């Protein structure tokens, strides 16, 4: 085992792919000479050269589309977006091309491509740079969406995402790049579509992904001090989503709190809540609980931003109201 950061885990996975498959290349804005807005590809240009580490003009629609075409022609592009908010500029390419092209060609055209993008609020970047559009992309059949919360999953998921023959959105919680954690030195992958039970417990199921997971770890600690045993699940993959693991857990515990760090309305937990209600409604000992960020454009001011975000106190309060725990 080695202790590395999420950033180092992503770097490791990318370098492995570049080393082992000549068809893998990376493109995006300022990923080469600059080294990447979040320094993920720092030093890559020197090591792999400009053919494989391609700096692009600031033209998201053009280079996302070019990534899709190159994937359809047999390459393995990893496209970096500086922020998942910038996906909006290339949304037509992601949805109408990457996701739809296989279906509308009757299965003739595949798009083995990864789009990496930082996501999430908490760094005072204001309304345009703090959004979490992995939630929107989960609605689109043809795409897969993953969102690691720790170095081990970050490495396992970047490996499986690059290997996957479909377009995969790899959403990186921008606040977690520096998070350290243990990573197995032996090669492994994390299966896309498989949630991870981080803590086994009996009294309540807590579910989130990405930067919701550090919050749930704290919530679980606090509940433990109150004598409440919680089962903590990291979805890891938002599309496809592992409904089975969550439902089995809820059927065991009879209680659940689902945490979105994105805005509450239309978040992935709304979808998961519907599934839990349908499949495990009879097992619930009280209301199915959901916490998400406020339905506001993200404010710049730190106090306002923190107030808008999901938080440990908000989660605990919901659990107290819902289950008197």
């Amino acid at each position, binding site marked *: 085992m080695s202790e590395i950061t999420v950033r180092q885990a992503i770097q490791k996975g990318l370098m492995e792919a570049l080393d082992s498959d000549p068809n893998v290349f990376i493109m995006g804005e300022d990923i080469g000479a600059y080294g990447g807005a979040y320094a993920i590809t720092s030093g890559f240009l020197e090591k792999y050269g400009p053919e494989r580490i391609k700096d692009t003009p600031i033209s998201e*629609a053009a280079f996302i589309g070019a990534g899709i075409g190159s994937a359809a022609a047999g390459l393995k592009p990893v496209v970096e977006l500086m922020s998942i908010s910038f996906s909006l500029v290339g949304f037509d390419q992601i949805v109408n091309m990457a996701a739809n092209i296989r279906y509308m*060609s*009757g299965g003739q055209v595949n798009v083995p491509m990864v789009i990496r993008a930082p996501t999430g609020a908490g760094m005072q970047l204001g309304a345009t740079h703090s959004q979490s559009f992995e939630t929107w992309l989960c609605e689109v059949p043809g795409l897969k969406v993953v969102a690691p919360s720790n170095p081990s999953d970050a490495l396992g998921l970047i490996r499986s995402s690059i290997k996957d023959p479909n377009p995969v959105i790899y959403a990186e919680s921008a606040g977690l790049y520096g998070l350290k954690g243990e990573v197995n030195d032996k090669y492994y992958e994390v299966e896309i579509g498989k949630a991870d039970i981080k803590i086994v417990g009996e009294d309540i199921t807590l579910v989130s992904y990405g930067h919701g997971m550090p919050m749930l770890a704290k919530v679980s600690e606090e509940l433990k001090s109150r004598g409440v045993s919680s089962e903590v699940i990291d979805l890891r993959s938002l599309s496809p989503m592992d409904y089975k693991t969550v439902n089995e857990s809820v059927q065991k515990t009879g209680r659940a709190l689902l945490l979105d760090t994105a805005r509450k309305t239309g978040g992935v937990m709304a979808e998961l809540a519907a599934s839990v209600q349908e499949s495990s409604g009879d097992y619930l000992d009280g209301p199915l609980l959901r916490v998400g960020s406020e339905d506001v454009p993200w404010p710049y001011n730190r106090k306002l931003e923190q107030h808008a975000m999901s938080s440990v106190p908000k989660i605990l309060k919901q659990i107290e109201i819902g289950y008197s725990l």
Partner: protein
Amino acid sequence: MEKKEYLDLYRKMYLIRRFEESCGENYSKGFIRGFLHLYIGEEAIAVGSITPLREDDFIVTHYRDHGHAIARGLETGPLMAELFGKKTGVSGGKGGSMHLFDAGKNFMGGHAIVGAQIPLAAGFALASQYQNKDSITVVYFGDGATNQGTFHETMNLASVWKLPILFFLENNFYGMGTSVERIRNNGKSFGNLAENYSIPSTIVDGMDVLAVKEVTEESIKKVRSGSGPAFIEATTFRFQGHSMADPAKYRAEKELEEWKKKDPLINFNNYLIKEGIAADIDIEKISKSVDDELEEAVKFATESPEPDLNDINNDIYA
């Protein structure tokens, strides 16, 4: 050029014309639904520009795509079956008129968001360049697409990266019902847009199949040599409305009359006879063989099964 090659050009153009007429008939009968955009009047462009391509070159086009598909050699039976929504269609009945594909022939669609196919096409060109292959990509789009950001972004990207791509503008002077004059304030030619990105441009009479073929051959040579992209504007006119739903009331009857004098099929027919390249009997033979082929195509489409209902979940993920 041999006589056979001339006749081949003529046959492809005639096949497209008759295919489109047949589509119109079958749309009226209710066998074809959805949006149907006919290529009648524009046949010389697809035939003149696709004929000189190699098998390993890529073609990416827009939603008025039947002509390009036929020029590329996609069979009319599976094409008609696609329009009929049948399982045997080129896209398994899941694409429809606007989304024709044949990956085996590097015919990479039929795309129905205006201008969206242009970045995609750059990706095929990028793959050729990355793999050191000398295949090229041709991307077709209309005058309406020239005001999309994707058009400008991709021309810049292709120019900076010297991608082996041929930008092919089919200027039929109307983006749906909006005339070119109303969306451009500096005349009718678009070549300067390409020149702004240091891409060499040519303008050609899109009603003249031989002229289209000649300029395309020159551009293909240039692009294949690795010098970067090229741009061709072919002027043309669609003889029908934008789609079957469009009676084209925004165009003056006289304008259509003038363009019909330049009918690419009739004029090429006359040219072949006048130059002594072909005799009436050659033309008649082609007419007969095309009519027979289309009869077969419609029969194939009619008799083919619809997709199975459980096909609905297939082809989403690889």
